[in-house]
């Protein structure tokens, strides 16, 4: 038998096919599912369909049984609660827009889960992410590229991977389209072929993140003023937990033209809104950096910068301005830059790196 590989199985079609492909490639495959959410009452369990819920465990176990591989549920509840849920709530409460999937990858999936995989004697951890890994022997670096299926590409949530993690990972689906993956699932009789896509945030019910945050951080559910750029009060918001940068609807404003949230001022518990033509910003400062083809950015470089999971990358210049900080200046001003979200730098389909958006600037 080949090298031992642990595959993270969520019960969904992607990770099931990833496991199947590895088995077919001759690896000795072990399936695992992360248990991340506290045990729930049965009625709540039934309502929730999150990627690592009990239902998901049952689906993943069925998939593993079908493939004839050992399967384990690993308890990562404590670390998930501390590193993902608490971070998510604290970021919203601070008026920022968190990305919990990146936090999960960075602090849970590719840290303790990877460690547990290695403890199981595996050489690598595999996941069903749509991204491609590549080794550059000339520079001795492991590289990350976008998945072949551009619409499903998940490299954005993987920018934070370090070399010591990348060399221990496998993304078997990076070279396939979602359609191909669905066909492969059907062809193999995997029981998950027709399942709906995972919800937006796996631990938030009905995608109602506002209510989720408000229940855990009541301060983020205090009504406050909605102001325009000149500081005039235009209305009242329900609480910062319910709002994000770029939002237009649901503000309850009666203005003659659409107004967008351009800033969340947690110190004043205020939302700042502006008409469409005033929402664009020249650039941003990005911190908490990780680079993949090299360790640090030495000088200015051109890159395509993506500021949300589903956003189009935009051409920009990035240059180091501090120890762990770069300035990103877009070739053309950008809308809806949300502090707290990740900015990921690309050159074509190659991931250069990324960081967390800290500050937005004009001019």
């Amino acid at each position, binding site marked *: 038998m080949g090298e*031992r590989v642990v595959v993270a199985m969520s019960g969904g079609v992607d990770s099931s096919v990833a496991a199947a492909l590895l088995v077919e490639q001759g690896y000795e495959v072990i399936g695992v599912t992360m248990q991340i959410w506290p*045990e729930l009452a049965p009625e709540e369990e039934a309502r929730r369909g999150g990627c690592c819920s009990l239902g998901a465990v049952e689906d993943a176990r069925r998939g593993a049984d079908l493939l004839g591989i050992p399967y384990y*549920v690993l308890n990562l509840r404590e670390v998930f609660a501390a590193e993902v849920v608490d971070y998510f709530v604290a970021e919203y409460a601070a008026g920022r827009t968190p990305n919990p999937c990146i936090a999960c990858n960075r602090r849970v999936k590719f840290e303790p889960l990877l460690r*547990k995989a290695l403890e199981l*004697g595996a*050489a690598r951890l595999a996941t069903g992410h749509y991204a491609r890994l590549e080794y550059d022997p000339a520079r001795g670096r492991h590289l990350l590229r976008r998945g072949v299926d551009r619409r499903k590409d998940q490299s954005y949530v993987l920018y934070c991977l370090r070399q010591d993690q990348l060399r221990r990972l496998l993304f078997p689906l990076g070279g396939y389209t979602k359609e191909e993956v669905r066909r492969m699932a059907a062809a193999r009789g995997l029981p998950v072929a027709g399942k709906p896509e995972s919800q937006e945030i796996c631990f938030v019910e009905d995608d109602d993140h506002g209510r989720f945050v408000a229940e855990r951080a009541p301060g983020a559910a205090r009504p406050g003023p909605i102001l325009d750029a000149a500081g005039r009060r235009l209305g009242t918001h329900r609480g910062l937990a319910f709002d994000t940068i770029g939002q237009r609807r649901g503000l309850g404003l009666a203005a003659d033209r659409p107004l967008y949230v351009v800033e969340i001022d947690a110190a004043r518990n205020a939302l700042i809104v502006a008409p469409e033509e005033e929402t664009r910003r020249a650039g941003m400062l990005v911190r908490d950096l990780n680079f993949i083809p090299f360790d640090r950015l030495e000088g200015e470089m051109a890159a395509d910068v993506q500021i949300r999971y589903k956003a189009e990358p935009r051409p920009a210049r990035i240059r180091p301005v501090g120890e762990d900080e770069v300035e990103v200046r877009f070739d053309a001003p950008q809308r809806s830059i949300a502090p707290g979200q990740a900015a990921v730098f690309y050159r074509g389909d190659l991931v250069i790196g990324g960081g967390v958006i800290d500050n937005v600037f004009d001019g």
Partner: protein
Amino acid sequence: MHRVYLDHAATTPVHPAVAEAMARCLAETYGNPSSIHGFGREAKKAVEAAREQVAALIGARPQEIVFTSGGTEADNLAVLGAARARRDRGNHVITSAVEHHAVLDACEHLAGREGFRVTVLPVDGAGRVDPDELRRALTPETVLVSVMLANNEVGTVQPIRELAAIAKAAGALFHTDAVQGAGQIPVDVDALGVDLLSLSAHKFYGPKGAGALYVRKGVRLQPLVHGGGQERRLRPGTPNVPGIAGLGVAAELARREMAERAAHVARLRERLLAGLLERVPDLAVNGHPEERLPGLLNVSVLGVEGESILLNLDLKGIAASSGSACAAGSTEPSHVLKAMGLAPAALHGALRFSLGRGNTDADVDRLLEVLPPIVERLRAMARGCGEPAGRA
């Protein structure tokens, strides 16, 4: 692969004689014990024979045995049934911090939904309840005390005789969850002085889905389910005749072979412990050194996650445990070890080996061969050196 089963505290393989009796019962004794015809009478006879066998195992009278679906139901019937039946006398229930969740959750339900006050007695570092703690906790309102006979995670045996006498003197009923003890160590309900006692067939080579509650004559319980007169109205429903027959045969065999089985597993346990102490550095033994089940060994491998060891053992075909498995099969830090005050490193590194009648010296040798390199490798990884080997 030489597969080794060292998880008899979770469940045991069915004894061939038990399986045979059950198969015969399934094939031939299919009547409903409540029916008046010959088929029914035969089934009734099988159930009553089993009742005698179970009663004999614990020194009870047959009419004091109520068959249930297992230990969890027996515990629930005892705790909820006794508390509810005695609601007019008081609203206080006492239990211990190391009980099985069948008892703890039933008590929590009484506290959360039915207006009872529940006192949870602490335990010492070996997992034992201090009788003085019980004395202090008892009030005129106390209607029930529930303390387990032997702990399922560390094997510590409680001073039940003393605890039951204290409860009785204060006018409270005494229940003991003997799921992990009955069939393994001598149990006599009169000598112990308990009013209620739960047991489960699959912990002593009987089938899953069959258990019993001993209910001392004169003790009143409120049933959990309604719908017929079976089991003195305490457990209505057509009895699980093959399961009960299997429980009966398992009880009979356990009674007859108890000393022999205990000596066998005790010897293997000593060998296992000696081997581990010799080959695995930084190992702590959990539980009481003397007052314990003969075949159970709980140790903490310091500096390593018990879960990682277990999974590596499983990949080598060796079955052990790190405490109670939750519904989804992942491990949680044990409430028992926490109550015993173990330090975090000992808590996370806990492993339970529970031996049974089928284990051999070769099984122990196999574990002693496989475990030390796993621990070494995991410790090396935890120290940050030692590249993970491609093959474990």
